């Protein structure tokens, strides 16, 4: 028996976009594959000693792309910390702000992510497989609409959350700014445009992707397919909710496996450490860690659009529900295990977000002036959970009786998917590399595997890519680098 132990020095941590290491066995087939995702380090050290009330103001800066998600999770952690219930109006305003953010993020990301893979085509040259290629293919009007909707959503959030870079509207027990009747009407028009736009995006998906057999085959094919557990927030009817509710987990057959209050997450989620990465991989405690494998016996679970739909019993709004039913019909039932369907689910969620915006704005209670309950309890421990665009986001703070943080933990959305992302890359690599033969199209096909998750690659930092493009290193059974694929700089 040939025991080749390959250790990847954890000191060679990721400093760029992504480094994928693929190890081949003696036959030249894929043995292991690893994606090194940069993770958030030092959160606890950073938080300890700070007043907890500062966290909703500071943590949005952890992510330049989804600050609102951190702001909301942090604010909810403070509600829990002070055991104060927000007023009904405050809850509605927060959910409205949050739905606006989800609409903006989801539609934008579809056109950047799913668009290039499907609208332009997975085999198109790299130079075309981007948002510019999408606009070329579907027309300038769509590009303009995407930008416009995005801007309108951002204007709504700036209005309600302060004209600063990052949102500052959340307070323990409420929000800092209410909505006037005049603005309610104005925003309602924008929300209705949002619904139309989300429907339009789904129609593009239908026309260009679903009517193209080649694309459908890739979506339902076995390269991008894993039978995992799925996790997401659901309301009291088990419908998808981004802002609040209980955490629900279903097994690979779609059966409810667990449903619990966010405060109980540590009873269900544990972390596994691999020697080659600084990341700790979350997994389901009650199933156990069985490696980068799928199926009922493995504790790996997935989060984000498709996972949320899988973990729910449906969408809470009618048009989104219709779209949900159509997706599952096409994919052959529920749960859907096809990774590329994350893009489809993302559009269904965008539609729900827009419909929810309309619903909340049509509820007159949203302009009520009672927007805050002042906390009265002594703080001790608080957990706040929301569904960020990329998955379940958890903020957890412990404080002394003056509200100064003594311990803190943060599980970002992508971390929940870290194990699944590695598994997806491994599977794609396995199917595409045979007997040491590495074809040209493989880099893109491997990227498609993890792009569907829209991972927060060092979402926090701004840096220019420098000379660190995406690298795929392929090693033979002796650990010798035999092939290197790079996404080009120029």
């Amino acid at each position, binding site marked *: 028996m040939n025991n080749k132990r390959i250790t990847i020095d954890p000191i060679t941590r990721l400093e760029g976009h992504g480094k994928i290491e693929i190890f081949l066995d003696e036959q030249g087939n894929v043995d292991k594959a690893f994606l090194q995702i940069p993770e958030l380090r030092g959160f606890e050290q950073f938080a300890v000693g700070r007043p907890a009330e500062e966290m909703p103001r500071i943590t949005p800066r952890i992510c330049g792309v989804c600050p609102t998600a951190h702001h909301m999770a942090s604010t909810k952690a403070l509600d829990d910390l002070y055991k104060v219930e927000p007023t009904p109006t405050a809850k509605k305003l927060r959910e409205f702000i949050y739905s606006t953010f989800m609409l903006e993020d989801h539609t934008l990301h579809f056109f*950047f992510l799913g668009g290039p893979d499907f609208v332009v085509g997975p085999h198109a040259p790299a130079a075309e497989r981007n*948002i510019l290629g999408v606009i070329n293919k579907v027309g300038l009007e769509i590009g303009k609409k995407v930008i416009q909707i995005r801007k309108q959503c951002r204007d709504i959030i700036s209005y309600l959350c302060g004209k600063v870079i990052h949102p500052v509207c959340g307070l323990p027990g409420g929000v800092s700014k209410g909505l006037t009747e005049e603005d309610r009407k104005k925003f309602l028009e924008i929300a209705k445009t949002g619904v139309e736009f989300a429907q339009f995006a789904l129609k593009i998906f239908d026309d260009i992707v679903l009517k193209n057999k080649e694309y459908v085959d890739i979506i339902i094919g076995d390269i991008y397919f894993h039978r995992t557990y799925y996790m997401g927030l659901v309301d009291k009817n088990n419908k998808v909710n981004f802002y609040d509710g209980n955490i629900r987990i279903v097994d690979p057959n779609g059966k409810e496996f667990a449903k619990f209050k966010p405060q109980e997450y540590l009873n269900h989620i544990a972390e596994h450490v691999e020697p080659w990465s600084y990341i700790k991989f979350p997994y389901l405690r009650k199933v156990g860690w069985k490696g980068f494998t799928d199926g009922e016996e493995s504790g790996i679970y997935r989060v984000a659009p498709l996972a949320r739909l899988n973990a729910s019993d449906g969408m809470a709004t009618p048009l989104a529900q219709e779209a949900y039913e159509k997706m599952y019909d096409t994919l052959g039932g529920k749960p859907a295990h096809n990774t590329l369907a994350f893009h489809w689910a993302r559009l269904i969620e965008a539609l729900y977000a827009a419909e929810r915006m309309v619903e909340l704005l049509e509820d007159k209670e949203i302009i009520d002036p009672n927007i805050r309950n002042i906390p009265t309890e002594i703080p001790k421990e608080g957990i706040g959970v929301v569904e960020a665009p990329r998955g379940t986001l958890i903020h957890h703070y412990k404080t002394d009786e003056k509200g100064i943080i003594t311990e803190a933990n943060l599980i970002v959305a992508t971390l929940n998917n870290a194990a699944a992302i590695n598994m997806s890359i491994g599977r794609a690599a396995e199917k595409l590399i045979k007997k040491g033969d590495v074809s040209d199209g493989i880099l893109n096909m491997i990227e498609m595997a993890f792009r569907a998750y829209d991972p927060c690659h*060092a979402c*926090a930092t701004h840096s*220019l890519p420098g*000379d660190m493009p995406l690298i795929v290193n392929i090693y033979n059974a002796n650990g010798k680098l035999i092939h290197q694929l790079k996404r080009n700089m120029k």
Partner: protein
Amino acid sequence: MKTLILGLGNELFGDDGIGIHVIRELKRKSDFKSNIDLIETSYSGLALIDVIADYERLIIIDTIKKEKPNPGNIRILDLSQVRHVPGPSPHYVSFPQIIALGKKLGLKMPTLVKIIAVEAKNIYILGEGLSPEVKCAIPGIIKKVKDILTDWERK
């Protein structure tokens, strides 16, 4: 000619805040003409399209990731030297892409662009404050900004 000096960064991530610190220093110390704006932002990706639209000239100050960094080292880059083939995520919409996208959508985008790229020591660990090497680079960065502006004035 409207000019924007844009400091990009995230002060929560050590050296990644350099762009922000430089803009603040420029605001404190320098006396620019009224057609020159100084903006600091932690926005990422497509949101930057709103920030840079309607300016003719743009200087960006940002950190750059290198495999073996020489912290505090300053390089001046043109758009052509920065990635324009998109990365694996919209988190990484590059400047050439933003400008190309803006133009395509009929927005007015800067035509003269220079990027002051500062090599960072540490950008992945949460913590405020610049490393000494990067902090010492601030006067050098400010000088480069002024050199670029002078150069553009001449043309």
